[in-house]
């Protein structure tokens, strides 16, 4: 009892997996060109792609459960989880009351204990009542516990204007939440990526915020039969060009592609980079593209002030200032609460015309 305390030296952790996170099996990732083809005839909806991702992973790992409002008996407010109650039963597909802070925290506690929760927010707009749990607990548990407990959890749901839902229901949370270290944010723009990214999110041992869009749930595209995982932090080059780089993520990527097609008619060719995850952010891909084009327009569906667009532009000037032939530009939603009226809401979004005008001005053809 009276011997002087002995202070051992502690080894540096060298394994790729943190010792706090046993039972984690990261999928093995392949390069973009080795992924199964995006072309094909197995055309399904975005919501089905999400469902397949969850169901495949749930079949693999009994620790995974899905909880949220109306996910079970109602088959999902937006039918994302349709049929999952039938397959997995009420112990794994669980309807919750309207208590986002409570069930988000429940998920975090369950993740600490060793489960792999998927928590659905009917809309990320409703995640504000759960902000403390998702921002103070999930992303900080590993740090606060000195590496003892991580938080392998996926929060997912609709993000962004859903179509005349008014200002309380149209949040784009990435501008707010991406500021916080400890979490990862994925935001797919098409069914193929939705599936591949969600499967990766579920496997990842860190908390992942997965941002979908009500406006894309019905979008259809080929999704391959075979299993695939899309790694985080790798942007996809959706279209190639040489005059300007367009950087976007989530739903607006589709507006960018429309804009790019029209700009091509004017003789302006653009790179369209789909970031797919905003945290991690594949700034290397942005830099590569700007080294070619010298110009960049960032398209973001959040309000502008301190948004991901601001961050992208800041990283651009930090990382390739000398390659810039024109000041970086951004297109956000208008800087006002989301209006209900159709006329106002349409103008409010970062729509095609705004993107075209920004690119024209970047290439000096405004």
């Amino acid at each position, binding site marked *: 009892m009276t011997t002087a*305390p002995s202070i051992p030296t502690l080894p540096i952790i060298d394994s790729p997996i943190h010792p706090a996170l046993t*039972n984690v099996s990261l999928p093995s990732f392949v390069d973009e060109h080795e992924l199964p083809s995006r072309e094909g005839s197995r055309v399904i909806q975005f919501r089905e792609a999400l469902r397949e991702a969850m169901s495949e992973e749930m079949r693999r790992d009994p620790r995974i459960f899905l909880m949220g409002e109306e996910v079970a008996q109602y088959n999902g407010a937006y039918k994302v989880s349709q049929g999952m109650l039938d397959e997995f039963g009420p112990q794994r597909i669980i309807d919750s009351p309207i208590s986002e802070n409570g069930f988000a925290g429940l998920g*975090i506690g369950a993740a600490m204990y060793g489960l792999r929760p998927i928590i659905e927010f009917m809309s990320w707009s409703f995640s504000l009542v759960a902000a403390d749990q998702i921002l103070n607990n999930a992303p900080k548990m590993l740090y606060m516990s000195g590496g003892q407990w991580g938080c392998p959890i996926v929060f997912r749901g609709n993000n962004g204007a859903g179509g005349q839902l008014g200002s309380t229901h149209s949040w784009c949370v990435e501008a707010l939440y991406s500021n916080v270290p400890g979490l990862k944010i994925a935001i797919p723009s098409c069914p193929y990526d939705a599936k591949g990214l969600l499967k990766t999110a579920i496997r990842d041992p860190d908390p992942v915020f997965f941002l979908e869009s009500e406006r894309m749930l019905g979008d259809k595209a080929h999704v391959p039969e075979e299993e695939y995982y899309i790694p985080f932090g790798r942007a996809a080059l959706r279209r190639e060009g040489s005059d300007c780089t367009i950087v976007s993520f989530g739903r607006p990527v589709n507006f960018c592609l429309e804009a790019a097609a029209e700009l091509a008619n004017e003789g302006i060719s653009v790179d369209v980079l789909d970031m797919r995850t905003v945290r*991690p952010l594949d*700034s290397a891909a942005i830099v590569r593209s700007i080294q070619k084009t010298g110009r960049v327009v960032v398209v973001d569906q959040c309000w502008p002030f301190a948004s991901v667009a601001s961050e992208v532009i800041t990283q651009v000037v930090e990382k390739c200032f000398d390659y810039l032939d024109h000041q970086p530009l951004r297109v956000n939603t208008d800087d006002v609460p989301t209006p209900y009226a159709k006329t106002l809401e349409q103008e409010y979004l970062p729509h095609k015309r705004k993107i075209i005008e920004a690119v024209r001005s970047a290439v000096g053809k405004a």
Partner: protein
Amino acid sequence: MSAATAPTMPKMPSSETLKQAGRVGSSPTPSQLLPDATLIRWLRDMMLIREFELRTMAAYQQAKIGGFCHIYIGQEATVVGTFAAVNHDDPVVTAYRDHGHALARGMTPEACMAEMYGKLHGCAKGKGGSMHMFDRPNHLYGGHGIVGAQTALGAGLAFAARYDWEVLNKAPGAPVLDGSGHPADRPRTPAGKKVCLCYLGDGALNQGCFHESLNLAGLFGLPVIYVVENNGYSMGTSIERGTTMAHNLVLKAAGYGIEGIEIDGLDLLSLYDKFKPYADRCRENQRPGFVDLKTYRYQGHSMSDPQKYRTKEEVQKYQERDSIDRLAAVLMSPKGEPAVGGHLGRGCLSEEQFKDMQREIKEEVRLAVEFAEQSPSPEAAEELYTDVYANPQPGLSSIRDYHHGVRNSLL
């Protein structure tokens, strides 16, 4: 503190009063069935916490410890008595007044003190501090700083424990849950029924999170017991000034279909006697519980509290019912004779032995402080960007890449 000197014997009730109260002569209570050694260990646990906290206060006053620091002195019986009623692998989560929970769960005073010193051998490598004591091998899922936030985590721990028992037991090849800190490849043995203890202060009753958690627990049948460490104050606000129905808190639980109980938290033996069967029932029925556990903190809210909201006399009144003194008196009273609180004396502890125990504990805590003093500070190069992500990836930050740092000494 009163336990620093040998306890004076409190006045004995007449055996007539005792018989009326049903304590003498009726069937034995749960604590009466326990061996002397267990009760002596409880006493020791409480004394350790108190001594540890005295040292914590001293270190704080010397500015060795920073931040907010909430002292547990006065509430020791709460944590020792409730822990005694559950198993070591039942998950526990609490608020920021958490040193007692850490020690009573089995964290070494070294790891606990080093954490407050912000040192590398602290339970969280100095990253968590006084309010955030985590101990995975001892199933302590943290002290938590945001009032009420841990109540949802408690629901989640109970959910997972029940899921383990109900779903994973039946899933072929299901892995061992890693919350226990055991290696992943340990063969799975069937999980049993667990019960989670989730502690909260009386001030946390008014956080929405708690009510959402009660409803979820009631609805889903989650085996979590919400133990309100009702010390009568949240900072300077007495419970009556902040909480409606302060005199009948179990009514709040009733609104969620949860049958709560009130327990006197200053008498460890009767606390255990009431809490043990209650906890057993919650475990057996896989149902939530709610305990209004009336206790008292002798010190201010945190180290910087001038305590103008209460009188010295009020504090003294509680100190006269000190839980350490009371248990010591029972253990030292002649075996079978009525002792303080209506308990039967155990006659298993001499004044000599008691003093030895005191000396031992003093030395143990002194060594813990020495350990904390000598433990190295975490270095920014190795620790600042570590433990942020379990799976660090490029591009997560514009400043620097994250990496894995120094191994936590508890793991």
